[in-house]
């Protein structure tokens, strides 16, 4: 894969050059997704301070955070060995060197990655960045059991490290040389997603001396430094003086203050200009008003890439029969669900999100179960249910309390009743929902689920949700409790590919298979919003496929 690596390196160097010229994002004003990764649109104004409304990160510790809000803020503070390109549009899913000089060289057997750290890097507190800090970060991640630790468990020696139960035990697969800055990472098997996973904030090196093995906020390397004024109410991001890593935007705004408010108040404050941006979507109640009155500072995008579908347990009745699963697909009406989402749903039947156009999404046309943007086919659905012999069966539809999921499963319940079942809902607390339905004993037949990407790679969608490998975890996210053998085969083949773009067609074919075999009942992709105050330059909306909005691209008018 050396050839691929150098090709990538050249490509990224070119991209780096392009980015270096302009710090502003694309000119795209349209309200749909994937704008060009262009560098046009004039010079962005530098300086100023803004206020952002958010529900605040679930954790300020980079190895422990899980939510997108956390990611948006902390990606400015912590940079990994590699990172994502800071551009709007599909280009944002490309990897570029971060703290490493270049993208790693990958061995012929695709199991060894060699990085070289840039020289003379310093953390925000002035201490030098050492090559061994990366291993320390992975150790922290594994020891504390961070939410994204499963992605680095493919590193050789991690399983042993966890068994040792000692913080300072060694991970045999990572060797680092502080003198030369070289870091060698050995995997137990080829894994194409690995690099994408460590590009996340959870893989960002932090100083070993200042990163204890408990919840903490160590310093990092990034265009901004964080100052936590009050962990549950406010924190401030200040531009890091002297930050200079080619390819990583330095940020236009000097000071970003992030405060916690209710979503309703946030919406009003952005309208009034008391806040400049909000990480949340305006409440359903105010959304129509915002859409119509402020179109020049409001847009919707299916970011971060996500898919919404109903899972169907293939090991229990009635969804063990393909006809029944197909019936569900025929019966659901994305237009109805669109209303429940307050208009923020793009109907679709693909399992992969449209933002993956470059790396594996190809619109399935025509959709095997009818046009998602058109009326459902209840008659056909009823016919299939009759044929299956399961008509009149009791079905429990599972959902959780997070808005608007209760309404979504309510709709599904009603629809299942219309096609011949006796359905009822069971809505449980969101915090424990996935753990409960992910346990086989629960026997959840059908219910709500969604997937927001961890990193831009089709394997991230297929593997955790549909594969046999996922069934090894307890709880699992494979709520079908079965896997399509064609899928497992494809994953074995495509998973190790370092760049999914090279095998995009095959990923698209897998997408098609999953939909045709009715392993899932997809209804669409959620559109998230970017709503700015009048002061903000709307050309710098910074809509990003990984971070939703890249704040380092923001600028004032």
């Amino acid at each position: 894969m050396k050839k691929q690596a150098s090709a990538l390196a050249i490509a990224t160097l070119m991209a780096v050059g392009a980015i270096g010229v302009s710090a502003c994002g694309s000119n795209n004003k349209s309200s749909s997704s994937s704008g060009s990764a262009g560098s046009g649109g004039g010079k962005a104004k530098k300086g100023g301070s803004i206020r952002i409304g958010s529900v605040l990160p679930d954790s300020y510790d980079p190895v422990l955070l899980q939510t997108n809000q956390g990611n948006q803020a902390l990606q400015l503070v912590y940079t990994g060995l590699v990172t994502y390109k800071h551009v709007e549009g599909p280009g944002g899913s490309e990897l570029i060197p971060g703290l490493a000089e270049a993208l790693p060289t990958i061995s012929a057997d695709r199991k060894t990655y060699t990085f070289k750290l840039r020289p003379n890097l310093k953390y925000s507190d002035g201490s030098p960045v050492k090559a061994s800090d990366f291993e320390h970060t992975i150790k922290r991640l594994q020891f504390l059991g961070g939410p994204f630790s499963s992605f680095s468990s493919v590193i050789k020696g991690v399983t042993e490290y966890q068994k040792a139960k000692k913080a300072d035990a060694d991970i045999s697969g990572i060797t680092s040389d502080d003198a030369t800055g070289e870091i060698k990472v050995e995997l137990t098997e080829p894994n194409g997603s690995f690099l994408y996973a460590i590009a996340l904030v959870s893989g960002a090196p932090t100083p070993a001396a200042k990163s204890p093995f408990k919840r903490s906020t160590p310093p990092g390397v990034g265009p901004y430094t964080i100052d936590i004024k009050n962990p549950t109410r406010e924190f401030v991001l200040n531009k890091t003086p002297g930050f200079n890593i080619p390819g990583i935007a330095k940020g236009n705004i000097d000071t970003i203050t992030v405060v916690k408010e209710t979503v309703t108040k946030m919406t009003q404050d952005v309208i009034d200009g008391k806040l400049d941006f909000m990480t949340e979507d305006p409440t359903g109640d105010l959304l129509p008003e915002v859409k119509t009155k402020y179109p020049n500072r409001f847009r919707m995008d299916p970011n971060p890439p996500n898919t919404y579908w109903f899972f169907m347990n293939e090991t229990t009745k009635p969804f063990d029969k393909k006809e029944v699963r197909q019936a569900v697909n025929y019966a659901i009406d994305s237009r109805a669900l669109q209303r429940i989402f307050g208009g923020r749903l793009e109907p679709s039947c693909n399992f992969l999100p449209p933002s993956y156009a470059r790396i594996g999404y190809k619109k399935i046309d025509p959709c095997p179960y009818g046009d998602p943007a058109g009326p459902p086919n209840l008659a056909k659905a009823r016919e299939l249910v009759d044929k299956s012999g399961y008509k009149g069966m009791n079905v429990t539809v599972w959902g959780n309390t997070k808005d608007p999921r209760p309404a979504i499963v309510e709709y599904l319940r009603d629809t299942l009743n219309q096609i011949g079942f006796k359905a009822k809902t069971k809505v449980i607390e969101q915090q424990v929902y996935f753990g409960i339905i992910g346990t086989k004993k629960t026997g959840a037949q059908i219910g709500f689920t969604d997937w927001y990407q961890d990193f831009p790679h089709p394997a991230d969608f297929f593997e955790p949700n549909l594969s046999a490998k996922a069934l090894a975890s307890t709880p699992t996210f494979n709520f079908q409790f079965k896997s399509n053998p064609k899928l497992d085969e494809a994953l074995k083949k495509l998973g190790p590919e370092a760049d999914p773009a090279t095998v995009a067609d095959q990923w698209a074919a897998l997408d098609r298979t999953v939909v045709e075999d009715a392993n899932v009942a997809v209804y669409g992709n959620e559109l998230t919003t970017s709503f700015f105050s009048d002061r903000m330059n709307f050309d710098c909306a910074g809509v990003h496929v990984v971070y939703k909005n890249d704040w380092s691209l923001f600028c004032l008018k």
Partner: protein
Amino acid sequence: MAIEPASELASAVPEAIVAEGGRTRVAGLAPWRIALRRLRRNRVALAFGALFLVIVAMCLAAPIYASQIAHTDPFKNHLTDQITIDGVKKDVVAPSGVPIGPTYSGRFFLGADGNGRDIAVRLLYGGRTSLTIGIGAALMSTLLSIVAGTLAGFYRGRVDAVITQILNLIWSFPPVLLGIALGTALALGGLKIGPLELDGDSKLIPSIIIAIVTVPYTARPLRGQVLALREKEFVEAARAQGAGSLRIMFSEILPNLSSTLVVFFPLMVASAIGFEAALSFLGAGVRPPNPSWGTMIADGVERIITGPHLAIVPGVMLVLSLLGLNVFGDGVRDAFDPRAKVRVRRS
């Protein structure tokens, strides 16, 4: 609470003392008859009592309304349907998610909710749920209070200590917090005590929770009354006759508690209905998709900007029910407490 007839009125009803096989029942006809007569004369209380009954009747008639007038049921989603009003076709739920407002016609009289369900139908069915849970909880609470209060007050000593400690424990918990903690926990896991097995979605669970949380508020006054009663002469007399403890409790103590309970009961129902609304509002009471006035208010508050009526209407029903019960309960209390009415004099 007056158990024995007030001295001023004893002379007015000489037949009050009914001798029965040597034992004298002091509590008996007198307070009841007087109270009933007074209540009958209290027009206002009766009117509000009737108001409550009207609401109950309306809610009982929910299935008729649903099938005959609204032509739907409380669970049917009409998300993509359209209805014709004055010749114009309108979306029940607009593509932006905003549901239709009141149509003041048979279908969707009060409009629709976010899932396209008929608000008026859900209002009536929700009333059934809220009222059933409220009345059920009050009954259970009364029963538990009688048992706890009587046992504690009568036996005293260790039994009293244990029961009082349990009551104190419950009473020291902030009631709403205890309610939602139990509500959330039990909704998740269901209730399994011995032979009793309830699914997390059962409507009995909120009833049981409310009953448990409100027991101390009735049990403690009852206990106090029992403590006083057991010293009375008629109890001593009964004992002298050779009656066992259980017999005494049933024949002497309980009847004397009855007037207290009658006065308490409407107010207990009112507070139980209010409590259920609060629990459901916070998401720890009735589980979806079952409607209750509390859940409807919660849903309505979420859409209050685009449809204030969604929050106002269930609230008004709730207020009217509580008002009916409170005023009627007041009237009952006035009827049993001779001093209240007597005191209303121009000073």
